[in-house]
């Protein structure tokens, strides 16, 4: 699959490395070139320096829509706006968004956006672990 990842922070960079390892073609977008240093060197891993809100940059990346667009910058509001804007404009089949604020994540999930909230996820995992210890 062709996957575009916006944000090369801790989550974005690691996720990109994992996905490339699994055989996907991945493009990582970040305004800050310095963030790319945690990315693996791989023929299927491309780095794009630029601002996604800049129409030319977005056009260049999404002219052919990717199968999945993963939005993981450090700001919830930016992630939510980018996700909705790009999904709408470029008809990307799947857009996944990281949202730190658990309430906001639920609100947008209800609106049909695929959100991933680290807090929800940690709660879910810890509950599972607790259940395992009690049984």
């Amino acid at each position, binding site marked *: 699959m062709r996957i575009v990842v916006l944000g090369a922070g801790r989550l974005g960079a690691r996720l990109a490395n994992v996905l490339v390892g699994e055989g996907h073609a991945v493009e990582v977008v970040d305004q800050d070139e310095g963030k790319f240093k945690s990315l693996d060197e791989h023929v299927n891993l491309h780095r794009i320096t630029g601002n996604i809100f800049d129409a030319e940059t977005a056009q260049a990346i999404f002219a052919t829509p990717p199968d999945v667009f993963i939005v993981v910058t450090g700001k919830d509001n930016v992630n*939510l706006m980018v996700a909705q804007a790009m999904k*709408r404009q470029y008809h990307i089949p799947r857009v996944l968004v990281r949202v730190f604020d658990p309430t906001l994540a639920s609100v947008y999930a*209800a609106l049909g956006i695929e959100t991933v909230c680290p807090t929800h996820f940690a709660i879910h995992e810890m509950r599972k672990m607790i259940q395992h210890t009690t049984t």
Partner: protein
Amino acid sequence: MYIIVVGAGKVGSHLTKFLLSEGHEVLLIEKEKGKAQELSTQFQESFLEGNGSRVSVLREAGANRANVLVAVTGADEENLVVCQVAKSVFKCPRTIARVNNPDNESLFSALGVDATVSATRLIDSLIEEQVEADDMVIPLVTLPGNVEIIEVDLSPTSGMVGRKVREIRFPEGAHFIAMIRKEEVIVPKMEIMFEKGDKVLVLVKKEAEQVLREMF
């Protein structure tokens, strides 16, 4: 009406002041701690410190009973999220967002924001209007003593359209002569109404011209 304003920059603060003076119930929300002290002194119970894109903050603000929510922070993404949360969680009947980047206007309305205000677009259209207004005024005759006779095309949006001659007070130094409607000169009578497309002939002293232009 109960109106929530998110973002206490120049726009948000002035808007809040204006809405309060109009007798509305207003709550201004600002997240920046550095501004909180001054804002709470100025607006007292009409101010709430907090991040307006948080559900908990909007709940505390009573967003569920707000008639209007206006998001005017300097960040478009924040304005969008505030409006979407107000709409989807609190069923706010009317949300208005400031868009700092005019390219975002259509996106915002597609995503459910009821109205957008773009300062850039506004200034553009004001300038355009001004340019058009200047084009509409054609000097016909220049007379000695800085006096001229000018012709003004009434645009459909002119405040004069639909008003009668007797209702219009021309500025000091300007004298209404006649109007031309469909190639025909109409000698003014008090009860005649200005219509769009009319050409209005005015004798005007140079110093009154600016005031006169502003009338059209």
